[in-house]
């Protein structure tokens, strides 16, 4: 059963080995050439699986992987029950929203500390489970790196997600995320990355002069 049709992949809820699982399928895109298409789909399938696993090792909740099928660019993984953070954020009272964002910041810090950048940090790629855990999904654009630049792009994307989707409390949310982030990576690294975020914004396209 199709549960989510994303732009890049579709998620199906299936029965597999007597349990409910999510099958993530990277469907071929007709708009791009077959060769480009295959390259991107295969690369992301391998990459995402590796990163989901590394993130889990780093203590960041992610779905467990059961099977990878490279021929069809499929990943079979644990079905995480919950709601996208995107859909809960605006219903929360200010304090809970703050706490949730600080927690998200800690998770991002945990990833970065372990040489992982997510590559697509948005509130739709975070699931708040019924037990109150935040599970990160969708690592298809992620990378194994400790480059300050890429960490900063990661946080920049988070900021942008707040600005485009949660614009009423974007600043408050990003500040909370950064607070949690600093708690995990420490003052020195945190500052380096945050300075880079500001630098990225200043590269001309992200700032208005007055």
């Amino acid at each position, binding site marked *: 059963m199709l549960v989510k049709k*994303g732009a890049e992949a579709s998620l199906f809820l299936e029965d597999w080995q007597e349990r409910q699982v999510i099958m993530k399928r990277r469907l071929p895109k007709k708009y791009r050439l077959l060769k*480009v298409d295959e390259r991107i789909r295969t690369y992301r399938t391998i990459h995402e699986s590796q990163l989901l696993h590394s993130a889990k090792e780093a203590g960041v909740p992610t779905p467990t992987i059961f099977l990878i099928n490279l021929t069809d660019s499929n990943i079979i993984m644990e079905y995480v029950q919950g709601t996208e953070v995107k859909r809960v954020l605006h219903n929360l009272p200010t304090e809970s929203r703050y706490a949730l964002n600080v927690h998200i910041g800690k998770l991002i810090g945990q990833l970065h500390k372990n040489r992982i950048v997510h590559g697509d940090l948005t509130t739709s790629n975070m699931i708040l489970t019924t037990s109150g855990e935040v599970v990160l999904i969708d690592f298809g654009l992620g990378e194994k790196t400790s480059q300050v630049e890429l960490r900063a792009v990661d946080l920049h994307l988070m900021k942008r997600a707040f*600005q485009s989707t949660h614009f009423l409390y974007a600043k408050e949310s990003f500040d909370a995320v950064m607070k949690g982030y600093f708690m995990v990576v420490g003052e020195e690294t945190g500052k380096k990355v945050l300075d880079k975020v500001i630098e990225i914004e200043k590269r001309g396209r992200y700032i208005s002069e007055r």
Partner: protein
Amino acid sequence: MVIGWRPLHEQDSKQQISLGIETTADDFGVGLVGFDGEILSNVFDVFVPEKGGIHPREAARHHAKVAQKVISRAFDEAGKTLKDVSIISFSQGPGLGPCLRTGATAARALAAYLKIPLVGVNHCVAHIEIGKLATDAQDPVTLYVSGGNTIVSAFDAGRYRVFGETLDIAIGNCLDVFARRAGLRREPSLPLGALVEKLAKQGKELIELPYSVKGMDLSFSGLLTATERILETGKFSVEDLCFSLQEVAFSMLAEITERALAHTEKREILLTGGVAANERLQEMLAVIAQDHDSRFCVVPKQYALDNGAMIAWTGILAYLQGLITPIEKSMVRLKWRLDDVEASWVR
């Protein structure tokens, strides 16, 4: 300074007209547009450098030189005179400083002389608005691609929100720089991007190039460098390189557009800006629109490149909401962001 303007009822008997001046980069464009959306004329004169890219001061000198001639031509083609104009619209930003200032100076002078309102227009908003006017798109996800900008946006809560954009150079810039490296020369009637497109159609072999999408943002500088390096090796033809560069760069653009469409759940895709004229890019977005049961709209060629009509039309939209730009607030804004503009005329 207070700008005097004639009350609307004194002009009821004839069509109201906006004069738009566009000078953000290498084009000096002038358009005359009726308040009902009728485009009466849209003319321009483009600065073609001897070699290399656009030097802002040289382009500005060109604009100053041709200004009078182009404005006259706009009136001639529309069969109108200065007296018929109700408002002066100009591109206030973003863009190259000297170029913007030249257009702004002309606009201020005209508005002051005619004693009519001046309306400063955001160039990016204008590309979206002319696309909507020309295609009748209502509420699209817009991919705006040009020499200076690469933005995926959609309207939400009073503004055109930016969902994705380039983290470094614009797609048009990427294609232009590569074209110059490959020794191609632009002609007034054939921009470099069009030359790349022409050669790409003869390319056959797909060369592996870096594909760089970060969330809904993208980066073209690495792709450009990689393509230039391969060009230097001389192992592949320029045709194959143009073909591969387009395929990879446009796949990136298509991917983020599809993401924005899925994210916003809108039902229209609008392609606008100079690079919108590229048929391969159009083809890719049309496929995406079809997959998502959405309508694909592409700005007609004559309004794809920077033009005065889009400025004139956006000026009308703003003016009808009571937005005018007093002369003391008409300084050009080099880095004026799309999402800084309160688009109170939308819906």
